[in-house]
């Protein structure tokens, strides 16, 4: 902030307004009008729609399908016990079967032993069952999920991460949507478990609330859920059988979402993917800024790989249905891949064309605009959706850092896309060993 303070002198600010509203608008256009604002408005309308509909949600009918949770574990160690305990603790009268898939169990002995230790605890509970499956040879996340699918006996299958624990009403919230036979999948809401560990973690907690809890609720209100999170996805078993499980390669969660969506168009939009902001999982995020950037490079790189290489053919209104087609173009390709380039180009252009004081002043204006937008959205979302409002409001003080944080993330994602395009970075993934990714067709 000090940097900005020194660069920006007060006399420049009236300058923006002297140029007239039209020019100013032009300078904002790429950022705001064409993209951020409509999306924010769509999400807010969606959240409002959800909030109103949630008020009149009927009492739960006695529909308690059996649930199989495939927990993909790698090197989580003792954290796996939190996951298993939180699933055992669910307030749900139906059956919950937990399949702890330990990938590379011979190396990850602690994870395997930790999972095995829980069998006594689980056996004390009615309708809870724990199966620990050691995959001695490491085979990657997808192989764990598909192996788990073979063992799964429930009508509902969950793909969960071994480092994610859940609120005790999660299964109850999630299963109620499947009473509607056209609901093919439910995406769960992720929150940050270690939010108080560091500043980076706190900022990610704010980001998760806006980009997951709120945005997905908004999109879900229009059946436009863009991704079923890999750490927390819930599927109807018959749908999983239809798409024949997960596909090898990275970003298998997005891949699965797109493949399910491919049926939307074919079946005349009957199918739905629901996001439930009250079905909550808590996951650990990288506590350091460096770790955060590394994680995002991987995610964003995987994203462009998936959109541009693997699912090029999926981009057809025929397969996805028109609304989803537009949404994938809009949120997927435009926002996450094209936008970083636009922002980067715009900033460079700004500094080249205008004097530095003017550019910085303009950026400051952009900053305040974003901050205001964020503040309004954050308060609105906490009021409408948050189940832990006190905790979320306590992070308001970090909000002024968020636009900078988001900018850094955008630039990082630019690097990721370039890296992926030029060097096939997705093969350099920690999600599967090289001897598995090597065989991948794409």
């Amino acid at each position, binding site marked *: 902030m000090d940097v900005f303070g020194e660069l920006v002198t007060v006399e420049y600010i009236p300058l923006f307004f002297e140029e007239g509203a039209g020019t100013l608008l032009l300078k904002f256009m790429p950022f705001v009008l064409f993209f951020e604002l409509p999306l924010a408005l769509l999400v807010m309308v969606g959240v409002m729609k959800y909030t109103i509909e949630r008020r009149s949600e009927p009492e*739960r009918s006695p529909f308690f399908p059996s649930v199989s949770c495939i927990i993909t574990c790698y090197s989580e160690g003792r954290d796996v016990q*939190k996951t298993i*305990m*939180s699933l055992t*603790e669910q*307030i749900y009268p139906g059956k919950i079967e937990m399949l702890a898939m330990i990938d590379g169990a011979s190396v990850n002995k602690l994870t395997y032993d930790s999972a095995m230790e829980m069998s006594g605890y689980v056996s*004390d509970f009615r309708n809870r069952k724990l199966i620990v499956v050691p995959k001695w040879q490491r085979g990657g996340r997808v192989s764990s999920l598909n192996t788990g699918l073979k063992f799964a006996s429930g009508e509902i299958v969950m793909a969960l991460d071994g480092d994610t*624990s*859940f*609120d*005790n*009403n999660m299964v*109850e919230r999630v299963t109620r949507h499947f009473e509607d036979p056209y609901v093919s999948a439910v995406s769960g809401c992720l929150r940050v478990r270690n939010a108080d560990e560091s500043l980076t973690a706190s900022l990610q907690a704010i980001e998760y609330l806006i980009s997951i809890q709120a945005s997905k609720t908004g999109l879900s209100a229009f059946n436009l859920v863009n991704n079923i999170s890999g750490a927390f996805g819930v599927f109807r078993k018959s749908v999983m059988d239809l798409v024949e499980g997960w596909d090898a390669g990275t970003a298998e969660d997005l891949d699965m979402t797109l493949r399910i969506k491919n049926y939307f168009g074919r079946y005349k939009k009957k199918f739905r993917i629901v996001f439930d902001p009250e079905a*909550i999982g*808590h996951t650990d995020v990288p506590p350091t800024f460096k770790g955060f950037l590394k994680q995002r490079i991987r995610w964003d790189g995987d994203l462009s790989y998936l959109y541009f290489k693997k699912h090029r053919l999926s981009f057809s209104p025929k397969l996805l249905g028109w609304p989803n087609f537009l949404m994938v173009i809009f949120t997927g390709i435009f926002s996450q891949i094209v936008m970083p380039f636009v922002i980067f180009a715009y900033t460079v252009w700004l500094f080249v064309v205008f004097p530095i004081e003017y550019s910085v002043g303009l950026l400051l204006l952009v900053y305040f605009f974003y901050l205001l937008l964020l503040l309004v959205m954050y308060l609105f979302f906490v009021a409408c959706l948050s*189940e*832990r409002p006190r905790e979320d409001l306590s992070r308001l003080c970090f909000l002024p850092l968020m636009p900078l944080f988001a900018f850094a993330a955008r630039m990082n994602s630019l690097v990721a896309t370039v890296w992926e395009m030029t060097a096939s970075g997705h093969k350099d993934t920690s999600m599967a060993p090289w001897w598995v990714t090597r065989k991948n067709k794409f």
Partner: protein
Amino acid sequence: MTVYKIYRILLGEEPVHYSDEKITDFPSAGELLEKKPKPGIVLIDGIKGNKTSDMLKVFWELVELRGSAEFCFAPIYISRTMKQLDIMVDGITANIEERLPEAISILERGARVRRDALIDNYNLRMLTYMYVRGDSYLLSPVCAPFSQWVYSYPHIALLLDSASKAAQMLRPEDLSGQDRLRSFRFDTEIMMALKAVAYLEDNGYIERYALVDRIRKCPKCRTGHLNYVDICPNCGSIDFEKKVMMHCFTCGYVAPDSDFRKSMSFVCPKCNTVLRHLGSDYDHPLESHECNNCGSKFIEPEVKADCLFCRTRTDPSDLTVVNVYSYKLSEKGSAAVRTGTMQMEVQLFDGQNNLKFGYFCNILEWMREYRKRYSDEAFSVIGLKFSNLYEVETSLGEDIYNKIMDELIFRIRSMVRSTDITTSSAPDTFWILLPRTALENSRILAERIEKLNDMLEITSEKKIEIRARSFQIPAEDDQTPAEQYLAMFAEEL
């Protein structure tokens, strides 16, 4: 060398064994016994063992053979396996020739036995059975899980006089033959065998060889079929539930999780916080139990052992611990077999002055003669009867019963003078001959014996009824045998 005969009992049309001149066939054990045969080897043949009815036929033949004085210790073989019956015979063989050496050694040792002593002495039969099978013979317990006694010695049970009054008195109900056979469920005999083995051990005729197993039994009825059940420590009900306790982090309230449950979520009843996540909103400080019968709350249920037969509930530490042993014949036991004499089996009195009933009657008649000659030589007889031993044992349980009996016997023995002569005419009837004692004096003693009941140190709900009367045999009558008088007196008891 004596040539022993082979008696074959042919029970069916399908003999395994060939016929030859050494083998004599009989249709049943009954017909064999009627012929008053010489000692020999018995082979049961001609029947397949795959039907229960077949096994039952063989079983009754065995009961008859082993119940007889002639064949109680004889080597008996069967030609095909008869499952549970196999351990009751000396072996299964299709070719009896192969078994001849061992069978002949049994019979040769049997030749040294005084057979006439076996006629009415079933305990001696058991000792003989062990004796003839050699010094290395082990009387091993057999696990009979369907029997309420769990471990027993069924081959010994066959030797017992199961029709005797004692068996009837102790367990009057009788199972059908088929039930008895099924896994040795002839419980009467099995229990009698246990008692017999215990008696032989107590009296030193057999000695422990190895500890085979240890089981816990109901202290009242001595059965091993127990159900270990966890119960409410307050009211003893088995109907209680595990209650998980919940602890709200926000306000610290602790209560069973049912108190927190509000439709599909946990809400703290004190501070109304919604408790969503284990470890960050709440935890389970402990597990407790709540009785559905009396409502009491407790951490650990109590464990008790319920007897499946008499329904007595016992603390596991109070169960009767029974060590099950295998036995060998002792020196004393093998001497008893060779001489054909065992000490008197009466428990109430022992020592030199305790006589066989016949001798006692002889002495009584001699005393009568003596008094006729020397009229100042008065003598009297006290009759003693325990009339409800069986009921007391079943209602108090064997442990307490034994303690009471021990004390009672000790007291009675201390009242008897060393010159008094004792005997027993029935398992529960005893006689004391008191020389130089007038009827009035012996009456006082009889009264004191009758009152012993109330003076015992062990108090119990049910008391052993002791009937004691003093009698005098009229001096003028020298015709009626003493035995007849005692029978008359016994009726008055």
